[in-house]
């Protein structure tokens, strides 16, 4: 731990990291302010504390007892006769639409059908629990959900990934920049120090991400009241997913998530993706001495990971495998914990993707470390 602490001190003394965190926070502030606040959402957040978030008779009675206002009228109108969208919902139609759109056949078509057959089970469970009768932000749900999970959390996740790569490359390149490689790597700890550097960079990166997330979300929730909405289910009938093949359809998650648990799960997967990118940074940083070139290599590789599947035929496994890579997981952040859309072939793609990527990248990192130990340092 002594080495790790010393390496973390190096990272914390870097103006580049603090500068990046400050810039990211400034960007997030602009993002929050540019979206503005919604009086109706604030009203729902407030009244949901009293009415609860499950739209039933009790909810309607409590809502009716509230002081008359335009917002109350609007909410009454939106929640009146709310139907459970999961009752009779057929997820298999989505599978057929995607199979048709991508011209899938054989095993890929079967896998797509299997995915939506499994989703149908989740839909049935949701129908039993009445998840879709959750209030969330009623008529403002789609916009509010998109604002937080499709805007701010996406930005935070991408910033986290950049922080992960930057801290890793900064700490691995530190000795090269200061010309201290020869002294450091000939000390008793030798080149094994890079494993401590790796741990330090990850801890510092996670810390920086959590710090940035804490400040950003504190500001967001200070301006956007969530009150009783925290307990709403994200698969509320008011929430939706939109894609070019199926248009608007219910926001179906594999498991049941409240807004609060969905936020925590999103942060969890973000940390998982950061972990993946830290390992990518480790492989690049131990293979390429110059941190700037290593960063460029990571950047180019990320672009290639986005571009390659776009050039592959849409009905091959290769294209679908690419969507499990960290770069694609990052791009598909707003759809985490859902079916993921037509370019995802397997259920729980975000968790599967993070686990597989971590396993593979850990292997690459071990290989890179062993190569680094045998490498001539000129």
């Amino acid at each position, binding site marked *: 731990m002594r080495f790790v602490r010393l390496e973390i001190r190096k990272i914390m003394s870097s103006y580049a990291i603090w500068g990046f965190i400050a810039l990211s926070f400034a960007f997030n502030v602009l993002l929050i302010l540019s979206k503005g606040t919604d009086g109706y959402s604030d009203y729902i957040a407030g009244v949901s504390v009293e009415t609860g978030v499950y739209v039933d008779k009790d909810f309607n009675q409590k809502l009716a007892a509230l002081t008359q206002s335009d917002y109350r009228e609007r909410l009454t109108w939106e929640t009146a006769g709310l139907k459970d969208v999961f009752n009779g919902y057929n997820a298999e139609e989505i599978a057929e639409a995607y199979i048709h759109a991508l011209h899938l056949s054989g095993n890929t078509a079967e896998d797509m059908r299997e995915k939506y057959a499994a989703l149908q089970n989740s839909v049935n469970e949701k129908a039993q629990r009445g998840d879709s009768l959750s209030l969330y932000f009623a008529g403002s749900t789609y916009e509010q959900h998109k604002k937080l999970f499709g805007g701010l959390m996406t930005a935070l996740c991408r910033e986290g990934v950049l922080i992960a790569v930057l801290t890793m490359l900064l700490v691995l390149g530190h000795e090269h920049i*200061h010309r201290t*490689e020869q002294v450091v*790597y000939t000390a008793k700890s030798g080149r094994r120090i890079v494993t401590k550097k790796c741990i330090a960079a990850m801890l510092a990166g996670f810390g920086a991400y959590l710090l940035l997330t804490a400040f950003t979300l504190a500001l967001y929730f200070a301006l956007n009241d969530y009150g009783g909405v925290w307990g709403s289910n994200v698969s509320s009938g008011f929430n939706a997913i939109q894609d070019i093949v199926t248009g608007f359809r219910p926001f179906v998650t594999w498991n049941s998530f409240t807004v609060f648990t969905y936020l925590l799960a999103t942060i969890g997967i973000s940390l998982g993706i950061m972990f993946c990118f830290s390992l990518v940074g480790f492989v690049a940083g131990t293979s390429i001495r110059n941190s700037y070139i290593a960063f460029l290599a990571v950047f180019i590789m990320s672009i290639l990971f986005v571009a390659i599947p776009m050039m592959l035929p849409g009905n091959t496994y290769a294209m679908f495998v690419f969507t499990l890579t960290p770069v694609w997981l990052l791009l598909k952040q707003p759809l985490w914990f859902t079916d993921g859309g037509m370019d995802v072939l397997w259920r729980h793609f975000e968790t599967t993707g993070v686990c597989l990527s971590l396993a593979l990248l850990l292997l690459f990192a071990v290989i890179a470390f062993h190569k680094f130990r045998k490498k001539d340092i*000129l």
Partner: protein
Amino acid sequence: MLLLNNVTKKYGNFTALKDINLEFTSGVYALLAPNGAGKTTLIKMLTTLIFPTKGEILWNGNEIVKLDSVYRDAIGYLPQEFGYYKNHSPYDFLLYLAALKGIDRAAASRKADELIELVSLSDVRNKKMRKFSGGMIQRVGIAQAMLNNPKILILDEPTAGLDPKERVRFRNLISTLSKDRIVILSTHIVSDIETIANHVIMLKDHKLLCDSSPASICETLAGKVFETADITSVREPHLTLTERQEDGRTITRFACDVNYFGAARSVAPNLEDIFLYVYRDEQTVCREVV
């Protein structure tokens, strides 16, 4: 004992060092060769920064790469380009490197203070190194190399860039530190060696040329070095070594391989003569007259 057995280092088709056999016991070993002869390659192999393409390096009979941290714990190294953290004080920097050398905090603190005093940096112990002179930085460098009280102290061009006063101070320091350990000193500055080295290792054309005491090496040119105030009178083929002014005259020192019976005075050869003679093809300052 540190032993090199048939050590070769290649970079693609380029051979940086070929079939080097050396044995180091305690004392000061000076690696003497012009720039590019392979001194730094040899030093880097001894410090495990690079690995031999062929052959083996043994420390007390064991391969140094296999010994790993056990071997590195026995070495102290001052690289040619000694890098440091500009915003650290010498004390903080030494504490950091002490941690890397596996020294516990209390012992590291004591050792850092002791070495800072030894290298006369007590006045600036807690000052940031940003504004330190080259000599001060080199002293920090020697202090860090001594942190683990190494059995092998490896110094790559330690006096390069130092002013004469600093250089003398540094040589004295190395002399002090050379008791009961192997000191390997790489340099192309001959005057550094004459005063402190027990052994001189010379490399030429990426091969070992000689490994002997300074006196034995000088002996190889005995009877071949002369001085004259009139070099134009020397008709025999000779190699001009140095020139100096004395009583308003230019005294030329030269080496002559053939029997010379002229008026020039025979003098005892020194290491500088050997250096200029051996590396005459590589030194632009040497003029060979045939």
